[in-house]
């Protein structure tokens, strides 16, 4: 199924790189993909978000107005993007930072304590990989292997030692939700 998703959070939570990993993985699998960031003042500490499209069809507009899925890494993100999820679509909430429940009842909402899981693994910064794992578990948008493949490209050989940690984070995320 075509994925048109919005990933949103604070600047620094890794939402842009999460989107890029997904996009890159989609490209490796031979799908049509696009990644579009919000840019400007939001880059400096406010809400940052990106739109990702992964599809077998042609990518038309890279802007996602009606999302198949939204990943909200913080409360402002949930408040802003909850309404853009299509009926029957998916909302994944980082419940470590969002202590509120979603209003929508016509969509599938998952709460993932991403920061807590990441802390258990010894590095808060992999919270984005945890939540990405949850997203993959729900959608099967791309394979875990493709994500790890993309990550290798991003990290380069000097940071290759970080791969096992990220793989573990991805796995813990997968386990945190039902398929």
């Amino acid at each position, binding site marked *: 199924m075509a994925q048109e998703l919005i990933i949103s959070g604070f600047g620094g939570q890794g939402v842009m790189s999460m989107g890029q990993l997904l996009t890159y993985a989609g490209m490796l699998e031979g799908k049509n993909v696009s990644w579009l960031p919000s840019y400007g003042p939001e880059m400096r500490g406010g809400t940052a978000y990106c739109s990702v499209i992964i599809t077998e069809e042609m990518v038309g*507009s890279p802007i996602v107005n009606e999302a198949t899925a939204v990943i909200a890494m913080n409360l402002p993100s949930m408040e802003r993007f909850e309404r853009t999820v299509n009926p029957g679509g998916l909302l994944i909430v980082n419940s470590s930072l969002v202590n509120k429940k979603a209003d929508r009842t016509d969509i599938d909402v998952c709460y993932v304590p991403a920061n807590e899981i990441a802390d258990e693994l010894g590095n808060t910064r992999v919270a984005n990989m945890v939540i990405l794992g949850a997203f993959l578990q729900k959608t099967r948008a791309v394979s875990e292997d493709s994500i790890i493949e993309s990550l290798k490209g991003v990290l380069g050989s000097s940071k290759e030692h970080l791969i096992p940690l990220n793989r573990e984070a991805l796995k813990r995320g997968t386990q945190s939700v039902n398929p």
Partner: protein
Amino acid sequence: MAKVLMKGNEAIAEAAIQAGCRYFFGYPITPQNEIPAYMAKMLPKVGGSFIQAESEVSAINMVYGAAGAGGRVMTSSSSPGISLKQEGISYIAGAELPCLIVNIVRGGPGLGGIQPAQSDYFQAVKGGGHGDYRVVVLAPAGIQEMADLVIDAFDIADRYRNPVMIMGDGMLGQMMEPVEFAKKEVTISEKPWATIGNKEGKPRNIINSLFLDTQDMENHVLKLFEKYKEIEKNEVRVECYNCEDAEIIIAAYGTTARIAKNVIQKAGAQGIKVGLIRPITLWPFPTDVFKKWAEADHVKSFLTVEMSMGQMIEDVRLSIKDTKPVHFYGRTGGMVPLPGDLLKEIIKIRGEK
């Protein structure tokens, strides 16, 4: 070479380097900063030269100097910066020098905002600076096309000794899509007119746009316009999509053309046949293609979609000489048309008949 995922701005820069561009002069402005950053990093590695100039005015004049000396050269900026560069662009056009200018358009007038817009269309295709001249304007709608057009742009510039502009917008500059660089041999044509030093026994080269005699000045402009006629004949590029049985044809370029394609699919699902003419060259404008489809009986009307208050619509109307109604839908100031709103507009136009 395998596909890589790149931002539009990075793709422009990489494509330029692959096209043999070795000189870049620019000044920072959002949303095109990735271009100079990429060039600053990469050009020294390939024996090129990068300068962050003291202003856009200086940057374009460095381009003027480098182009005259025979270098393959470019600059990039966004709307307010392109306004400042118009002086130099006019000189470069007047002195008949090749170069690439990239405008990643943002909302205006004035300082405006950094969000995507297409409101520099008039400035790009109708002149921009002073005097009688034209700049070839290419409008990519995706990252792959952006990269391909950059490479073509340098060749067009050299072939006609004329500045070429790539007009994108903040969205195209910032978004990422896969892009593949076909490794091809770059051959840069000889530039016997370049000022590289006057060897004994050869004619002196002078880069100039001043004419003392009004008749000489007119003759020079007439010569330029002969050249422009050639460009109009040879360089028009356009994509037609779903026009064969369309009752409404959308005219849109760049980002808005992508939105239009989405909407065309949605409209089709509702049984409304909509097509798209997407000019890839904004100048020369694909007049003949518009004329051809305006003559088709199944085409009842046109709808121009732009991120401006309506600028390209004038060229659409001129092309079809108002033989069919030309509607307009646009957002401006950094707002991007929403597919849902555009679909409503199409349904409304269809109901009016």
